[in-house]
């Protein structure tokens, strides 16, 4: 970031800027292509459609498998977890967060089973050390935010900042695609639902 900014600022010559900008763009593209390829992957139409199809299928199966009476299959949280899992599948296991999502369900189940017998005892927690000079040094603004970000992105708790940023980038792109797909899906479903309602029965109101 700084390098590019300084690069641009340092050059007052306008006639060369176009060439330099092109070169910078190519550079940036070549660089970001290593990381940004995932971005392109998530932005493609086909990826979104594939995700939508899989999500629909998963939702159908969930609604079918679960007893119709129970609201478990159609719970919001269930749907969200389902959507996340489908998204993680769409990531093809290349990213840490996707693997963590897919593995988290299993871990949760295991933990639930393990915790049930020992539900009373709580995990002993280390008391947070009083902020000393060392802590102050270790709590710069950037570090704090890095921690928060690592909590947000699934499966990225103790990884180095570099990998965390990479995972965050991919995760953001995947989330964007997920939002797009689900929005389209809800629009379709709600649209058809309203159409059906409107056509079948006259609105009582």
């Amino acid at each position: 970031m700084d390098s590019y900014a300084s690069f641009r600022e340092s050059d007052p010559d306008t006639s060369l800027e176009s060439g330099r900008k092109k070169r910078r763009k190519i550079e940036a593209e070549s660089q970001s292509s290593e990381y940004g390829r995932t971005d392109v992957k998530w932005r493609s139409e086909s990826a979104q459609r594939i995700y939508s199809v899989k999500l629909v299928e998963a939702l159908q199966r969930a609604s079918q498998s679960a007893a119709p009476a129970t609201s478990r299959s159609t719970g919001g949280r269930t749907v969200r977890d389902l959507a996340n899992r489908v998204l993680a599948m769409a990531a093809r296991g290349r990213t840490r967060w996707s693997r963590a999502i897919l593995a988290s369900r299993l871990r949760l189940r295991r933990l639930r089973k393990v915790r049930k017998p020992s539900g009373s005892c709580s995990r002993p927690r280390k008391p947070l050390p009083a902020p000393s000079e060392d802590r102050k040094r270790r709590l710069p603004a950037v570090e704090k935010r890095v921690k928060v970000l690592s909590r947000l992105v699934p499966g990225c708790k103790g990884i180095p900042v570099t990998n965390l940023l990479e995972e965050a980038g991919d995760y953001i792109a995947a989330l964007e695609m997920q939002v797009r797909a689900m929005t389209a899906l809800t629009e379709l479903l709600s649209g058809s639902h309203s159409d059906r309602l409107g056509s079948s029965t006259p609105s009582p109101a």
Partner: protein
Amino acid sequence: MESNSSNPIGMDVHSNGQLPNNCFFNPSWENSISMDQTDPFESALSSIVSSPVASTMGPGEGDHGMIKELIGRLGVICNSGEISPQSYFEHRSSNNSTNTSAYTTPLNSPPKLSLSMMDHQIRGNFWMPGTQFHPHSQQSFVPFSTDPGFAERAARSSCFGVRNFAGGLQLNGSQRQAVTAKKEKVLSRDGNSGFGDAGDSREGSSLSEQIPGVEMNNMRAQNDANARKRKSAQRGKPKDSTLPPKDSEVAGENNQPSPKKIKSGEAAENGSGKECDENADKVSQGDKNQKLGKDSKSKQPEPPKDYIHVRARRGQATDSHSLAERVRREKISQRMKVLQDLVPGCNKVTGKAVMLDEIINYVQSLQCQVEFLSMKLATLNPRMDFNVEAFLSKDIFQSRGLLAHSDFPLDSSSAPTFHYGFQPSHGMISAMSEPEVQYPENPLNAVIHRNRSNHLPPIDGFPEASSQVIKKSSSELMSAMWEDDLQSVVQMGIAQNHQPLSFHGSAEPNHPQMKVKS
């Protein structure tokens, strides 16, 4: 003296309308040039400057200085406008009746030839500044054609002149190349664009730097060269001492960017790592940046080879720890850049902390959106069976992008199901099942087959068939649309080989689709 020589040139170049008197000739040249000869030069110069014509001037010794001045002029004149060959002849003939004959002959020849002749002459003349000119030097005043190529060549010749002028200078080959390359770049670009003002000023200034004014040039160039050499030596030393394996890379870079760095004041630009040496010379700043950009660009593919070659910045520590730290910081900044493009509204934000804040907010907002949409979908879920057909037909089967990928033969078992209601696309979709049939170990295949088997008998309801098709198509789409990696990922037999995907390996067939358990 030097100031007198330099300023008028500078003024002349930039103003493009003033003609200083006796200013273009260095003291050494002035000695060789008689005063009366300067007068015709003055008039010639005035004529040159007033009308955008690069006319040739007086014969004899004056030619030498005039050549240089003309070359300097050419850049300016070409920038300002067209130069008609006729005007050349006129002026020449008016000024030097004796030389008209000499001029006419070169006139007839193609401009390039004359230019080459001129180049030779100029070079020869430049080689011995201050010496008497040979009579054949008259030919140097060749018709200056107006094409930009001529200016380019003139500049090139001036570059050669630089080399010869600064006899005291020890411009190494790379510097010379850098200079000439820079000039060519400048001129070619300007020639193509018609000599914009920026190029004009740049070229003018660069030409003024190199053109007549030997002593001035000598002094300045020497200082510059010394500065460059000092800098390169400085930069070379710590690097050579601490990073022996990186010498080749570093040294190679040293020679190229070092000539471009003259001012040491811009240490503030040490913000970058590899493209660090941005102490820009005003003259060659743009080109240097170009070259630096190219260097850094050319360097990009190199690091992945063995290890990252990092350029130690000026004034920075060069031990391995700090270098590794710098590499790490650069990686982080690169990824932050990628994130900056990803997160909307982060272009103006600078600084890691604020950027991270934005990223965190964006991720949280996206997750909230997903939750909200999932709640919405949950309420709409019961409608799905009814609407799935419409949904799929709208969203999937009508999309060209999806169908374009498939080109597989029909699967016999799936044929009847596909005939059921998806005529236009059944061929495509069923074709996708082919690759899955090849992988019997695929749990997905098992799923698909099971689905087929489960749903094949009750092929009576349209929704059921559609759902079956959907399941099959979705899985097929999933396998066909995605790259082969996906198949390898999902397949049980292969998935076990992948360490991070170990949980895929034990996926039970009971849970179709993606609910993988291990």
